[in-house]
């Protein structure tokens, strides 16, 4: 039977069990959209701007663990996705992205809405393709799904020239065998044994868990290993949620705005078992003073990450789940039971450092209070996404996350505007969960044009804006490191964020007093339409703890008193 390229694309999506996709059509991708018109089994969520479309697919992928699929048109459609795709690439989130392209005979000739998307995508994807013939489509699309999901996940992009979409092939062959010849690395038993011995001989072992633990689904193994060793766990920003917030061995997240207990634990450790982390500068602080007393074991699936920033004494190249389970097995053979090591007492002392001296009842509202109340109201399956900046760090500090894939944030790229569209994607993946975007007013404005998507598609989300009328994190740095010279960070008074929200068909609530917070949140959580809550917070509140960029992890900035602190 003759089949068009467009039909092959849609059939391939079905074969990959795609039931939700995110997109925004335009000239060069219209042929595929004509087939989607007859494909009710794929729920298509129509974006309003392609950056939002990419973040939605990313939020869907992070919440579900399945690849997020997006489809846009050529030229500006594709270039608008670039921030979103780069965001996913930095945080190892699997996307399969399609963009229309002008017909092959016009590629390179500056045709209308033509951009060299093929070259633009190279540095921000695991792989990208520009099929020139219709018959290449089934294998190319299968390969894209395989590459996006195997090993360390990431985005894969496919350009679809219009003539390739419209071309016909007389018989279509959909490959069923694996096309991407990826073999999962596996450390030798010898190395696992060596790691076990290092762990058993350590007095102060610490487990540093990154996003790789979540991607690999290694939470159970991680907890079991920590309990056997009675070793504290600290997480990176991307690792938040890989261990329940109330686990007795969990100290918190480490890094620039890490908890004091977590940062001290790393600096006092004599052994760091780092799992699925790339030692970002926001995690390590000054690299030469990171974990100065510790030997380091690095469990990592991507060979290029080993030794990139921190040279480990021992590298275990492999998938976190598999490596941790083998490691535990060997540990259990070597030692009858884990012993309470030297940490137990010190851990309790360290936890004392994390008491926050905040006037929770202050007016204007402390941003910490808003985030804490959100956390108190959420159930374990609910999801928090964040924008980027102060709001993101308040969320990281005060939201308690109990399960993997329930805290979704742009870690590596730090993309303002990520949280709102990512919340829509997460809601599409987890319709029964409450999804809250912890936002700042600066970030919210960047992608609030995606809000109507949540309204029209009945994917209700809650946007909790910590409204301080500043680009808050930049203002905080200017206050602390630049003599309060607030250069171009004040956003003004005239923007009414809730009116904007209501114009998009969402509900808007303004909250100015701490006593109103809970009721507003409760209403929003049970609402069947999206709600934007504009929390008027203390304008010059700072996020603490804080370690300045380039300083060692325990060189905390002294908390200066602002109103309410």
């Amino acid at each position, binding site marked *: 039977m003759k089949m068009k390229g467009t039909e092959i694309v849609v059939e391939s999506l079905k074969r990959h069990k795609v039931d939700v996709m995110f997109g925004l059509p335009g000239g060069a991708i219209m042929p595929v959209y004509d087939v989607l018109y007859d494909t009710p089994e794929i729920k298509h969520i129509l974006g309003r701007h392609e950056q939002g479309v990419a973040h939605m697919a990313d939020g869907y992928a992070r919440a579900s663990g399945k690849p997020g699929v997006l489809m846009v048109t050529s030229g500006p459609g594709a270039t608008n996705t670039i921030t979103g795709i780069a965001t996913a690439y930095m945080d190892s989130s699997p996307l399969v992205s399609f963009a229309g392209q002008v017909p092959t005979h016009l590629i390179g000739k500056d045709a209308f809405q033509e951009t060299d998307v*093929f070259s633009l995508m*190279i*540095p921000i994807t695991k792989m990208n393709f520009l099929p020139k013939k219709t018959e290449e489509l089934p294998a190319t699309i299968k390969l894209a799904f395989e590459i996006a999901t195997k090993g360390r996940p990431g985005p894969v992009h496919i350009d679809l020239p219009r003539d390739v979409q419209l071309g016909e092939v007389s018989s279509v062959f959909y490959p069923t065998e694996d096309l991407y010849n990826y073999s999962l690395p596996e450390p030798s038993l010898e190395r696992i044994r060596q790691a076990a011995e290092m762990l058993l001989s350590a007095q102060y072992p610490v487990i540093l868990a990154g996003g790789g633990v979540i991607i690999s689904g290694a939470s159970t193994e991680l907890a079991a290993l920590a309990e056997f060793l009675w070793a504290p766990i600290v997480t990176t920003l991307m690792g938040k949620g890989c261990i329940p917030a109330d686990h007795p061995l969990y100290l918190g997240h480490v890094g620039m705005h890490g908890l004091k207990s977590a940062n001290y634990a790393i600096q006092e450790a004599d052994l760091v078992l780092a799992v699925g982390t790339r030692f970002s500068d926001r995690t390590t602080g000054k690299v030469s003073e990171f974990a100065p007393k510790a030997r380091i074991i690095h469990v990592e699936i*991507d*060979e*290029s990450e080993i*030794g990139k920033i921190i040279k480990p004494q021992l590298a275990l190249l492999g998938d976190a789940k598999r490596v941790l389970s083998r490691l535990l097995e060997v540990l259990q053979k070597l030692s009858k039971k884990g012993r309470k090591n030297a940490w137990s007492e010190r851990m309790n002392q360290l936890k004392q450092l994390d008491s926050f001296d905040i006037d929770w009842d202050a007016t204007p509202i402390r941003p910490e209070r808003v985030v804490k109340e959100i956390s108190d109201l959420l159930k374990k399956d609910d999801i928090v996404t964040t924008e980027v900046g102060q709001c993101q760090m308040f969320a990281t500090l005060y939201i308690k996350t109990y399960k993997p894939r329930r805290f979704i944030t742009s870690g590596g790229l730090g993309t303002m505007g990520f949280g709102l569209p990512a919340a829509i994607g997460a809601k599409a993946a987890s319709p029964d969960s409450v999804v809250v975007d912890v936002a700042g007013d600066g970030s919210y404005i960047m992608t609030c044009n995606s809000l109507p998507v949540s309204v029209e598609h009945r994917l209700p989300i809650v946007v909790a804006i910590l409204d301080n009328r500043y680009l808050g994190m930049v203002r905080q740095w200017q206050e602390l490191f630049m003599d309060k010279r607030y250069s171009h960070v004040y956003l003004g008074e005239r923007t009414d964020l809730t009116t904007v929200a209501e114009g998009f068909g969402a509900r808007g609530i303004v909250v100015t007093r701490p006593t109103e917070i809970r009721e507003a949140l409760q209403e929003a959580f049970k609402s069947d339409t999206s709600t934007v809550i504009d929390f008027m917070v203390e304008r010059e509140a700072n996020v603490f703890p804080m370690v300045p960029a380039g300083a060692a992890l325990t060189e905390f900035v002294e908390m200066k008193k602002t109103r309410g602190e």
Partner: protein
Amino acid sequence: MSGDVDAFILSLTVEDKPGVMERISRIFARRSINIDSITVGRISPGISRIILSFKTELDEAKFVSSLLRKMFLVKSVDRLDPDNSVTRELAIVKFKTPDREAKLQVLKVLDEMGARILYTELSYIIAELTGSPSRIDEVLSKLSPYAFEFARSGIAAINL
């Protein structure tokens, strides 16, 4: 950073697809590593070998190699040890021969170096030089007053 810069030669096998050179060269460009020489040739249907030479620090060279190794179109990456590999380059050079004396001088050196004469005119000679890159540098420096146009192939190399 150790600061010690070494010369490296990498031998890659890659899928012969459009864009593969861009994918590889941008790994170097992003880190401001200058590629001294790059040669490409098909070694079997659909597969090419790329020989890259560049100078950087050892850790950076290892990192770059691991980035290349994980690329979908790259099938293998091997570092060639200069002491344990054969390295050759080809140069085609035009030498001006304004008079008989110059011509004799150029021909004498070329003969000593085992060059092949490809073409002669009254006023110039085109010769082909093959050898290690340093050998070619040596010939060109000896004949520098005469050589006025060159094309060098870049390095081809293979392990012993």
